[in-house]
């Protein structure tokens, strides 16, 4: 039982750590705004696949960690991640049977909500940033989703097959 749970959590923790690294990895100036929201994408995937192991609480903790490493308002990314993970867990059964194209559309909507929440909080807190910082990750995130989805499904399959 505990062994099974362990084998479920390990890929989540590993991919999230890699996601955090990708989130703070330095990129050349012009390409930096196009960095996808790796942690949001990972959060959606794991919430869809393992809604019992990985849910709003874990997403919130990851969000706080992201806030600290970004130096943004403490709780900003936590709130946004928490909300999109809630929606994903709520509809995970439906999302699992979606074909990939439809799923990508759903992910686009979730990412848009995520960016909107961040934008909204920034607006309330008086942080100004150019529009491209919100729109660019949305586009790249959606474009990268099908590949990420295939890759992570492979990871998950292997992790379960191995235990």
């Amino acid at each position: 039982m505990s062994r099974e749970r362990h084998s479920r959590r390990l890929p989540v923790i590993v991919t999230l750590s890699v996601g955090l690294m990708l989130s703070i990895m330095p990129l050349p100036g012009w390409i930096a705004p196009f960095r996808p929201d790796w942690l949001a994408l990972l959060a959606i995937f794991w919430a869809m696949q393992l809604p019992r192991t990985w849910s709003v609480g874990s997403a919130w903790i990851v969000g706080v960690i992201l806030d600290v490493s970004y130096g943004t308002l403490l709780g900003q990314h936590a709130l946004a991640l928490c909300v999109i993970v809630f929606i994903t867990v709520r509809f995970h059964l439906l999302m699992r049977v979606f074909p990939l194209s439809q799923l990508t559309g759903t992910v686009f909507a979730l990412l848009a909500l995520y960016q909107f929440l961040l934008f909204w909080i920034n607006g309330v807190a008086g942080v100004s940033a150019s529009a491209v910082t919100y729109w660019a990750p949305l586009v790249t995130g959606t474009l990268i989703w099908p590949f990420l989805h295939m890759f992570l499904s492979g990871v998950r399959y292997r992790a379960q097959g191995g235990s």
Partner: protein
Amino acid sequence: MVDSRGNSSSPARIPALGVRTLVLVFVSIVLMYLDHRDNHLDAVRNGIGVAVYPIQLIVDAPVRLWAWLGESTTSRNHLQREVARLNAERLLTNARLQRLTALEAENARLRALLEARSKVRDEVRVAEIMAVDANPYEHNLVIDIGSRDGVYDGQAIVDADGVVGQVIKTGLMTAQAVLISDTDHALPVEVNRNGLRTIAVGTGEIDRLDLPFLPNNADIRAGDLLVTSGLGGAFPAGYPVAVVDTVTRILQEPFADVNAKPSAALDQVREVMLIWSAPAADEERGDAAPESDDE
């Protein structure tokens, strides 16, 4: 926490999920409120910051390794040229420094005559910039020393050519700094030629500062050097900030449109210097927030 009821039946789980989400959203809002109003949460930030530090180190490692490889595989020829160049540079700097000592003594004497408070020598320490991208909404950087080494919020950061920015969040082992080019950063400066004081505001572009508060008849022209005036209290006076690039005077407008180019290579620096200046340290709290300077 997450998995405690993980194996209960599905229908019972859904309302709990909604409640949990609501609680977490509420906690986030309270956290953001506290974080925005005051810095009550510095301890929390530091605690989590220590946990994130290894990840930052891992991200930084390849860049560091690359630099190290580059250093250790340069040819002997190249090194010799480098040494020759540095020696020449050192001679030049030394020559200038000799004059500086004399000037400093003279300055102290004159100030004593005027009975003005003599300028305190600034204490400087070199810090390395970590190859870590931080906040996507700001121009900022992460340096590899923190409150453990005495770094404080609002501390001035310069490189060899001029002012780079100031510390905004101090962690235990790292600190985050905002660059002078950030849109929320305003810096009190004066024109070195005639002492005209104004504010240099970041534009969000890495190679441009804006001087929005200069009237049309202000005595400023392209090529003027802007230095810190020390009025904000956060930055010690006399460090070069930028060189005036263009001055456009539009007769209908009350203010001239003045752009300046930062002296420091904001996007290329790898090593920066942190300044501890005694008078600034006393009143660091008052003017630490960059926005409070522009009035």
